[in-house]
């Protein structure tokens, strides 16, 4: 090889030093005895090295130190003057950036339709370097002080800040320990660990509400009442849930009034105490109960007219 660059490290801290050496072999034909080795960084003009010496085996070696390498990526060229054009003999790619910061805001949600546990996190500032995030976890018990079987690393798809652990790797109704590892050429950082049972972080979808025809009820309807029914989100039927209803007059912008706690399903529910013949907007949400869980979002609005 005519020319060969060796660099202290292909990836360095942004703003830090880089040292490189370039050796020109004697058999690099057409050369005069003492060729001057030149360096070029990206598109900057050529510059001689800090030191050039002739090694015992006749090769010429030039060394250069770039004290503050401020490019996130650049090519360093080793050149020789040959005729009227500097000749490039080798090229090295230099990259600079920062070690990863500790991934933060790790949170997880169990999805009952895909049956996977999806965790997301804040990756932190750009390190300018290829940084791999891995969602790590192991099965545990009680308060997560013991490590049972470890779980396969979950590697997010190209650069996303979330990853889904498939059902077959999950031990439901037992606690597991989950954390995120961030790694690049300059270091590795681990997030704080979560201790959770996937079923305690189920993402509930809101219940389904429907109107009931007051006249179809057995007893004659009282005035100023609303008749409705609801049932929980189908995939979560097996979970005991507690629900909350809120209502507000369709007009007039009065604030929501909440009715709680309510059972997770009711096929005939009468709500009274309203002015007659007035249209009300109703919404409902549910939460796993008494076992831990997250509130579902509020259901789509149901417009109901109070009885005459």
């Amino acid at each position, binding site marked *: 090889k005519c020319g060969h660059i060796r660099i202290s490290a292909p990836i360095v801290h942004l703003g830090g030093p880089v040292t490189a050496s370039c050796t020109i072999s004697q058999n690099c034909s057409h050369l005069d005895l003492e060729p001057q080795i030149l360096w070029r960084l990206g598109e900057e003009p050529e510059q001689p090295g800090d030191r050039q010496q002739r090694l015992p085996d006749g090769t010429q070696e030039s060394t250069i130190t770039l004290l503050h390498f401020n490019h996130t990526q650049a090519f360093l060229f080793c050149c020789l003057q*040959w005729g009227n054009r500097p000749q490039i003999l080798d*090229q090295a790619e230099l990259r600079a950036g920062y070690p990863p910061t500790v991934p933060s805001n790790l949170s997880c949600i169990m999805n009952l339709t895909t049956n996977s546990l999806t965790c997301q996190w804040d990756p932190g500032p750009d390190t300018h370097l290829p940084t791999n995030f891995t969602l790590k976890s192991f099965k545990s018990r009680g308060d997560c002080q013991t490590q049972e079987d470890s779980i396969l690393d979950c590697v997010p798809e190209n650069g996303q800040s979330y990853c889904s652990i498939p059902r077959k790797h999950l031990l439901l109704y037992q606690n597991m320990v989950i954390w995120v590892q961030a790694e690049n050429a300059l270091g590795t950082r681990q997030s704080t660990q979560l201790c959770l049972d996937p079923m305690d972080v189920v993402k509930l979808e809101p219940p389904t509400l429907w109107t009931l025809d007051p006249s179809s009820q057995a007893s004659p309807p009282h005035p100023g009442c609303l008749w409705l029914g609801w049932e929980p989100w189908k995939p979560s039927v097996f979970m005991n849930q507690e629900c909350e209803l809120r209502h507000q007059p369709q007009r007039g912008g009065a604030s929501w009034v909440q009715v709680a706690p309510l059972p997770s399903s009711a096929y005939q529910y009468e709500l009274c105490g309203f002015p007659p013949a007035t249209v009300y907007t109703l919404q409902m949400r549910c939460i796993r109960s008494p076992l831990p869980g997250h509130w579902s979002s509020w259901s789509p609005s149901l417009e109901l007219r109070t009885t005459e």
Partner: protein
Amino acid sequence: PLGPANSLPLPRSFLLKSSEQVRKIQAQGAMLQEKLCATYKLCHPEELALLGHSLGIPRAPLSSCSSQALQLTGCLSQLHRGLFLYQGLLQALAGTSPELSPTLDMLQLDVANFATTVWQQMEDLEVAPAVQPTQSTMPTFTSDFQRRAGGVLVTSHLQSFLGLAYRVLRYLAEP
């Protein structure tokens, strides 16, 4: 000005298709040169001449297609051998980098297809050698940089080779 072509009856469709293939390859080659420049800042073949010498990157001759004395059978044969050589050189550059591979592969396929067009025309004219040429030994590229620099040099040589070929084809296509 090109000299008198001898009597070989080259069909018009061959001349039209070959001219288009040359333009297609030149466009593909220009794309590869742009990518080598944009991605690796290797933009000037003249800065890599010394490296080219040391790596032993050959150039394909087109002397029989020269303007002084156009010798058609020899010219077709040199055109085919040159395309065959550049096809081999481009194959030797395979694996340069994921960014370049698609463009490099496409260029190599277009060169190979043009070589087939010329060879089959020589067969139709019964001027094709009995045996297809065998590939000469290719330079060995021992580093990513050498493959990239080789890419710049090979494409540059190919572009000037095609420039000459295009002039001959245009000349032969003149009524």
